[in-house]
């Protein structure tokens, strides 16, 4: 296979991956952020303590996280068809990607928000703030560096998941690597795909870490340095990193 043959393939694959990962990250953040915060608020001793609700959300999140992505994708077929009108292609892949990422991100958010000093919550309450004020003025802004790290982790995980989206004809870099590189023994193309993935993940991780660190430094809580690990997760297939490691 010559470069001129590979180039359009790769170009298309890159866009497909970015498209799927971009949309599903957006949906995961929009869905996972409130869910994660709710997990903290409804927990025992939380501002909106509600053991039943907490258990229910926690259980949904656990199930969502423990299902292998490929099974989730198949299991969600009907829902995907209802949402997008089809079960194949990029749009169809976004649905399971987003749904898979929401609980993942929610857990990371939960961990990040839990780290916020309770004294700050108390301070805002003593000023007459309500729960919504606490969320808006304390929990989110104070955990922002961690939330950004969590988003980075989620994006990297989604890039991993998106490799499986090829099975529903959604394309993407992972799909190229499997179909051409593995099934047709186009080793060269496979390595190029791997290289592109490595670069993309490095750039995302670097940008995420940098943003988190800048915010962190501004806040200046020293003693919790963010480790720069741009290469992590590249060789582990679907990424299983924990946000706690970043913080």
């Amino acid at each position, binding site marked *: 296979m010559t470069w001129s043959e590979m180039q359009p393939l790769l170009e298309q694959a890159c866009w497909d991956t970015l498209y799927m990962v971009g949309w599903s990250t957006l949906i995961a953040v929009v869905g996972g952020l409130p869910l994660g915060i709710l997990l903290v608020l409804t927990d025992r001793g939380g501002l909106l303590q509600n053991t039943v609700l907490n258990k229910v959300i926690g259980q949904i999140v656990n199930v969502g996280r423990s299902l292998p992505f490929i099974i989730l994708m198949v299991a969600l077929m009907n829902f995907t068809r209802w949402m997008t009108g089809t079960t194949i292609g990029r749009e169809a892949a976004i649905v399971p990607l987003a749904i898979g990422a929401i609980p993942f991100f929610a857990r990371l958010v939960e961990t990040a928000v839990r780290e916020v000093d309770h004294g700050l919550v*108390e301070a805002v309450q003593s*000023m*007459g703030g309500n729960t919504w004020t606490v969320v808006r003025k304390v929990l989110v*802004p104070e955990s922002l560096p961690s939330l950004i790290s969590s988003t980075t982790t989620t994006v990297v995980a989604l890039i991993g998941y998106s490799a499986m989206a090829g099975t529903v004809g959604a394309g993407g870099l992972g799909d190229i690597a499997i179909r051409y590189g593995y099934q047709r023994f186009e080793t060269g193309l496979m390595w190029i795909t791997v290289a592109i993935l490595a670069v993309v993940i490095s750039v995302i991780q670097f940008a995420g870490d940098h943003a988190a660190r800048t915010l962190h430094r501004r806040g*200046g809580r*020293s003693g919790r340095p963010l480790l720069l690990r741009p290469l992590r997760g590249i060789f582990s297939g679907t990424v299983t990193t924990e946000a706690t490691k970043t913080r």
Partner: protein
Amino acid sequence: MITTTGLTKIYRAHHARDREVTALDGVDLHVREGEVFGVIGQSGAGKSSLIRCVNLLERPTSGTVTVAGQDLTALVGRGPRAGKELRKARSRIGMVFQHFNLLSSRTVQDNVELPLEILGKSGKERARKALELLDLVGLSDKAKSYPAQLSGGQKQRVGIARALAGDPKVLLSDEATSALDPETTRSILQLLRDLNRQLGLTVLLITHEMDVVKSVCDSAALMENGKIVESGTVSELLATPGSELASALFPVSGDASADDRTVIDVTFHGEAATRPVISQLSRTYNIDISIIGAAMDTVAGKQVGRMRIELPGRYEENVVPIGFLREQGLQIDLVGTDPEAQQPVLVKEGAK
């Protein structure tokens, strides 16, 4: 200004009714308008629960809290969340914390503006007020800094400025100086004192440091095991025989230099403290008086405290001079080993 009656707080372990901790046990507290009131006690005595019950950050199990004539306990709704009325009442009570509790993501000015944001003030008004308050606490040059760039004392000044943003009449101070070094502690206490005088602010502070009470408080209460053991103005406490707080606030020590001496503790409080009674005593009866120890302080322009003096001769020989001192309105306690003395050993060392 702040009154609590029968305030009780019991913490129950989850799903275990038999494991209860009584943090507050029927606390009656009365803080007068415009005074600095210190509650002192060891950790675990219930001070923290007490101050949190005053603005209902902790919900008392029973009892009432009245601040500025408003019964706050009546504003508590049925649910666990604070209703609108209670939140409004809280915004009129400032609170400063041991660990400052400043938002690290906001600048100093934005931290001070936070309570004003909650009160729904406009941006312009917020900035004006915040800068004015920062000026008041001596930090106008730090408005754009982040809390992490400040020293502990500066952070607490920001905390105080923030607490004053809602123009409160009452300030609650939760161990505000406990995380600070002695010098910074003094400057923060001085600031609290100044604010108390300038703004007529009523301050309720809790602390475990006797020095804090000594340097700023008009009144004090001693807390042990969730109960107020002693309470009153500094001179009332001094007037109470055997008051633990008084002897901790004004510790005197020293023994008689010889057997045929009389050692007495003279407690100065109220009017008598302004007259030079010791030299009068010396001149009137022509006796030599040695001062063994003294702990005096000026509270609200008056000399208060204790002095341990030694008179020549045994107690029997000194009945008349001691009577003279009593006539002056001073409180006299006989110190010593004489088993026949009316009052037993009164040697009680200070807390430190």
